[in-house]
């Protein structure tokens, strides 16, 4: 049993991390589907930690939301007329512009790690939702074998840790954010957890 098997084994805590990234990805990629709304409403969490409280608030808040109010808020926050209140891209946060070097650096790493781009994707790959999805995939092995922790850490440091905490703070504080405020709180708390956990493994 101690000898390695050929099946990738993802530890329980890593499965949970991947689920958290995947959930953030779904929440931030587009206005929620009915299925996602139901799922969020069904979340039960223990309030003993910031992350637990944030999940609890999300479920409570979304039980009072309608699909159209969620769609409207998402649109004001992330789409807008020319752009939303927030511009959730790595390149924008680091340089003030879209499509700059941070995006090129990300594409370099994507290619190296075997991460492709969906044919129907219209957003640049450095959208927060795409990056969360990539982290989830690196953890579970969606792009091949699960990435070793050192590789996950490198990807996190280079493409997420350097700006996503600020983005999630901004989301919490955004004028238009009420249903999405807990999403910012989840992201904020989870980024803290990830940063601390990577530091432990160093």
């Amino acid at each position, binding site marked *: 049993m101690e000898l390695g098997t050929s099946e990738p084994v993802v530890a329980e805590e890593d499965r949970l991390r991947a689920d958290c990234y995947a959930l953030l990805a779904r929440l931030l990629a587009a206005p929620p589907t009915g299925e996602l709304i139901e799922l969020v409403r069904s979340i039960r*969490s223990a309030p003993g930690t*910031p992350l637990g409280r944030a999940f609890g608030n999300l479920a409570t808040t979304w039980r009072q939301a309608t699909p159209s109010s969620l769609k409207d808020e998402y649109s004001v926050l992330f789409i807008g007329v020319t752009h939303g209140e927030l511009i959730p891209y790595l390149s924008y946060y680091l340089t003030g512009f879209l499509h700059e070097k941070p995006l090129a650096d990300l594409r370099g790493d994507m290619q190296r790690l075997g991460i492709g781009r969906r044919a129907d994707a219209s957003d640049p790959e450095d959208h927060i*939702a795409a990056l969360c999805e990539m982290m989830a995939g690196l953890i579970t092995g969606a792009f091949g074998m699960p990435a070793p922790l050192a590789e996950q850490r490198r990807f996190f440091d280079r493409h997420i840790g350097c700006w996503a905490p600020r983005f999630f703070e901004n989301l919490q504080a955004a004028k238009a954010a009420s249903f999405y405020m807990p999403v910012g709180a989840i992201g904020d708390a989870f980024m803290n957890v990830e940063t601390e956990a990577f530091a432990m493994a160093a």
Partner: protein
Amino acid sequence: MKTDNKIKSPRRETASRREFFKMTGLGAAIVGAAAAGAGAQPASAASPARDKDAGYRETAHVKRYYELAKY
């Protein structure tokens, strides 16, 4: 051998990491949402490029798109 010195320290590291994540509330929080991410279709721009050729073609195509878009 389980007691091999070489693997002792990574194991301790793994154990403390596991303990740490237990304390964060991550487990309790997402039990209900576990299906969330896992099952559903990809949310955004990323997809596996196990077929390297397909992945690369797409990337090149997109690269060209942004070259054009940047004037």
